């Protein structure tokens, strides 16, 4: 969709301030490890998406774009941390600028801000997969299938696919666990119900039978069916309102029977043993009572027959009270004075003069007290029995019992004042139970009969408890079953959600991977054309995992790291990435950031990789970083990039960021060292720069250097080779000019040769072998004033290898075979060396 024209980076990551002009073409950032190359890739990714892959996603806990994208010295001044990128829409040719600050990374300034630019921004946000680092390649080639799927998805920023699957999987597992829990709860409820019922399995007929047995005991209606709404204890509440249930059977029966015993009744309902016990007890009681009562009856008769005794008994209390009340010698009534002792003796004599009357009185009072106690007991029993009568439906009998109680109460009151009515008192003592006539006995028998009809309370209570608990346990069981059913249904939904998602994902990814594996095989074959032309790969996605098998020289398919070398795995990683990117972005795969992705691929395969880029991705702008100079030269020689589309980062410092290898910059740097009188830094800097440039010139001019094992050449080897080669070219150019009779060219070549010779002499390099003191190895021992002319001489010498017009380095042409010319890119410098 877009191509990148230029970028301006300010205080971002390890970069202080940098500008690059990509001109919509491929571009290479070269430099050693730690020189700041990846910062450029990060800046581009940030400008385009607002994100930096290495600061987000897997394995980046604790770091973030907001906190760590800024240059370390500008963490607290994020507004100044910005990247501005100029892009071109490949389809329309329209140019846009995106300026993004770390402070407001999600709100870039877009110029012009219109529908087209917004569409581009949206596309870039959705496709951050244009960026790839070697770290990412290794993660998805040399890994387990389950991790590979994640890494491939992360590579293509498809993490959310697996995240959603994980959410649905957890949802399904949660529901599955809930179903197990509910199953267990239902089983417990079922067991509790079965234990209560005393049966082995849920059987409706058995439950009905047990239920109805209890209901029968309680006199409740039978149940004819059982369903989830069944109330096993229905009607029990109504039972509480049954009047009979208000009467406790056993106490009532006992009370009436006890009364019968007291009344010396023979109860036909009593068993033989009880009858015998009763008879014995009654006989003893009667004998004692009759003896006691006979004495009382005699006393009553004596008092009744002798009125003076009754009169005396009535006065006796007065005497006794009066004696107690006389406390001084004046009458409290008439105020008459008397002799206190005389009076006391007089009253005492009155009290003592009829001891018989006192004895009779005491016998009668004692008997009354006893019989009153008995009457009170009878009254209490009759009261309790009478209370039950209405509940047994015996209203009339209740009224009779009330009357009986009133009579007994009157008798009791009479015994409290025995001398008021000795005739009535005598009747009571002669027959204390006179009130319990035949009618009363009938009533009591009837009540006993009715009471015995009341159901046994222990059985009813048991039945009541059984039905109540059955109702509770059945309700718990039904509820547990309903809950379980609900969760089983939920489980069905969550299982379907997961299976549908996996099915859709599998279908989509299978199609994607099927397309991808064809491209992948094709790309990989092309970079290994000499021995793996028939290479085939197979991507097999399955439930969150992704198996990758690759052909190994026709011996079968194996994991990529089983037999292939590290370099081959790197190549596979990049090919797989390109295949995925092509499928995901299609025609919009117009640019790509590759951060140090081919470090372990050898030179020969890299050359093929260049061909791959040219053949399969002619419309894609690749922005690459690498620390490998050979790889850069291959990219240039294969015309993936032009020489102007390569920058080399020489070194990096936290204060200044990366330093670009550029003659003017180096010269300034050396001058700064010299200003500080720092020859120990200035001398090696000049030497390293010369070695770098002369190596480049050696390639450009096809200079001959003796090969070494390390492929590392010093200034003493490079300078003579380059000088010799250029001199040779100039000599051939003179000969050619002579040969073709071109005087002007001859003069021009002579002039160049003279200037070159003079410049070379000033470097004193010719004398290195004669005078070790001026050898480049001794530069660090120079005085500053001696070093400065040498430095100036070498920079002047390097100028001789540049075109005066375009300032580009000169080179020989062609790059192989017999040299035909020395020229520059603009063509202003062009010497024919072919005679």
């Amino acid at each position, binding site marked *: 969709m877009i191509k990148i024209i230029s970028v301006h980076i300010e205080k971002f990551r390890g970069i202080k301030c940098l500008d690059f002009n990509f001109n919509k073409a491929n571009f290479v950032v070269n430099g050693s490890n730690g020189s700041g190359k990846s910062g450029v890739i990060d800046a581009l990714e940030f400008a385009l998406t607002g*994100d930096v892959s290495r600061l*987000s*996603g897997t394995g980046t806990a604790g770091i973030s774009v907001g906190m760590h994208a800024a240059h370390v010295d500008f963490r607290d001044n994020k507004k100044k941390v910005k990247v501005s990128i100029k892009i071109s829409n490949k389809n329309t040719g329209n140019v846009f600028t995106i300026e993004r600050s770390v402070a407001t990374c999600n709100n870039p300034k877009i110029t012009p801000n219109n529908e087209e630019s917004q569409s581009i921004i949206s596309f870039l*946000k*959705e*496709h*951050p*997969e244009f960026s790839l680092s070697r770290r990412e390649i290794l993660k998805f080639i040399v890994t387990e299938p389950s991790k590979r799927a994640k890494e491939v998805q992360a590579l*293509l*920023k*498809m*993490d*959310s*696919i697996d*995240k*959603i699957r994980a*959410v*649905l999987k*957890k*949802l399904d597992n*949660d529901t599955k666990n809930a179903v197990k829990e509910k199953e267990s709860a239902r089983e417990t409820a079922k067991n509790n119900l079965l234990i209560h019922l005393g049966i082995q399995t849920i059987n409706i007929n058995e439950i009905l039978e047990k239920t109805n047995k209890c209901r029968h005991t309680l006199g409740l209606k039978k149940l004819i069916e059982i369903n989830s709404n069944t109330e096993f204890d229905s009607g029990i509440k109504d039972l509480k309102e049954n009047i009979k249930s208000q009467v406790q059977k056993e106490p009532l029966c006992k009370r009436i029977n006890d009364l019968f015993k007291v009344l010396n009744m023979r109860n036909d309902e009593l068993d033989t043993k009880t009858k015998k016990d009763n008879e014995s007890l009654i006989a003893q009681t009667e004998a004692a009572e009759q003896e006691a009562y006979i004495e009382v009856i005699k006393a009553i008769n004596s008092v009744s027959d002798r009125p003076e005794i009754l009169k005396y008994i009535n006065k006796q209390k007065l005497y006794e009270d009066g004696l107690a009340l006389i406390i001084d010698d004046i009458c409290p009534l008439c105020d008459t004075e008397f002799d206190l002792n005389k009076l006391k003796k007089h009253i005492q004599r009155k009290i003592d003069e009829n001891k018989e009357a006192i004895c009779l009185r005491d016998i009668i009072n004692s008997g009354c007290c006893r019989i009153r106690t008995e009457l009170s007991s009878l009254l209490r029993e009759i009261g309790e029995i009478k209370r039950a009568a209405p509940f047994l439906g015996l209203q009339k009998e209740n009224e009779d019992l009330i009357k009986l109680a009133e009579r007994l109460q009157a008798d009791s009151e009479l015994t409290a004042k025995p001398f008021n009515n000795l005739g009535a008192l005598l009747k009571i003592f002669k027959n204390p139970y006179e009130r319990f006539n035949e009618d009363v006995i009938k009533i009591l028998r009837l009540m006993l009969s009715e009471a015995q009809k009341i159901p046994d309370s222990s059985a009813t209570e048991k039945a009541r408890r059984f039905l109540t608990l059955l109702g509770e346990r059945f309700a718990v069981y039904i509820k547990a079953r309903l809950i379980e059913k609900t969760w089983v249904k*939920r489980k069905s*939904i*969550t299982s*379907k*959600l997961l299976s*549908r*998602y996996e*099915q*859709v*994902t599998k*279908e*989509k990814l299978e199609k*994607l991977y099927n397309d991808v594996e064809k491209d992948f095989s094709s790309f990989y074959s092309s970079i290994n054309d000499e021995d793996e032309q028939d290479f085939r790969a197979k991507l097999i996605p399955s439930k969150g995992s992704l198996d990758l098998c690759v052909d190994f020289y026709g011996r079968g398919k194996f994991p990529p790291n089983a037999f292939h070398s590290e370099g081959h795995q790197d190549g596979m990683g990049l090919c797989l990435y390109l295949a995925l990117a092509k499928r*995901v972005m299609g025609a919009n795969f117009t640019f790509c950031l590759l951060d140090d992705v081919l470090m372990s691929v050898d030179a020969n395969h890299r050359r093929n990789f260049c061909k791959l880029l040219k053949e399969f991705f002619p419309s894609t702008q690749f922005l690459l970083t690498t620390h490998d100079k050979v790889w850069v030269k291959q990219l240039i020689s294969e015309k993936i990039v032009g020489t102007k589309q390569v920058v080399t980062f020489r070194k990096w410092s936290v204060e200044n960021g990366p330093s670009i290898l550029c003659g003017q910059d180096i010269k300034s740097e050396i001058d700064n060292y010299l200003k500080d009188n720092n020859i120990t830094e200035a001398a090696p800097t000049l030497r390293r720069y010369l070695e770098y440039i002369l190596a480049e010139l050696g390639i450009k001019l096809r200079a001959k250097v003796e090969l070494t094992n390390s492929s590392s050449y010093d200034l003493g080897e490079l300078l003579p080779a380059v000088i010799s080669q250029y001199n040779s070219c100039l000599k051939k150019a003179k000969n050619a000019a002579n040969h073709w009779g071109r005087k002007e060219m001859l003069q021009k070549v002579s002039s160049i040769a003279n200037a070159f010779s003079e410049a070379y002499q000033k470097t004193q390099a010719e004398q290195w072998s004669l005078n070790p003191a001026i050898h480049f190895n001794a530069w660090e021992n120079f005085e500053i004033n001696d070093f400065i002319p040498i430095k100036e001489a070498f920079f002047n010498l390097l100028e001789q290898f540049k075109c005066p017009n375009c300032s580009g380095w000169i080179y020989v042409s062609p790059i192989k075979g017999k040299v035909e010319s020395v020229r520059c890119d603009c063509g202003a410098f062009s010497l024919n060396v072919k005679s």
Partner: protein
Amino acid sequence: MNNSLLSQEIVNSFVDCIKDDKVIEDDAVLERFMQLFESGGIPSVDDIKNVIFNEEFN
């Protein structure tokens, strides 16, 4: 991190599949379920439970 188009395409197909297969029968619940995925975000387990079980699970 944003979904790629592929992720979104999978989510769209998934939601269509749920709708077509009537995995969620209640239309209102289905509507709310689809809304969970509309924003392009990743719903939580509780979000989905709240919708499809029609209960609060937080």
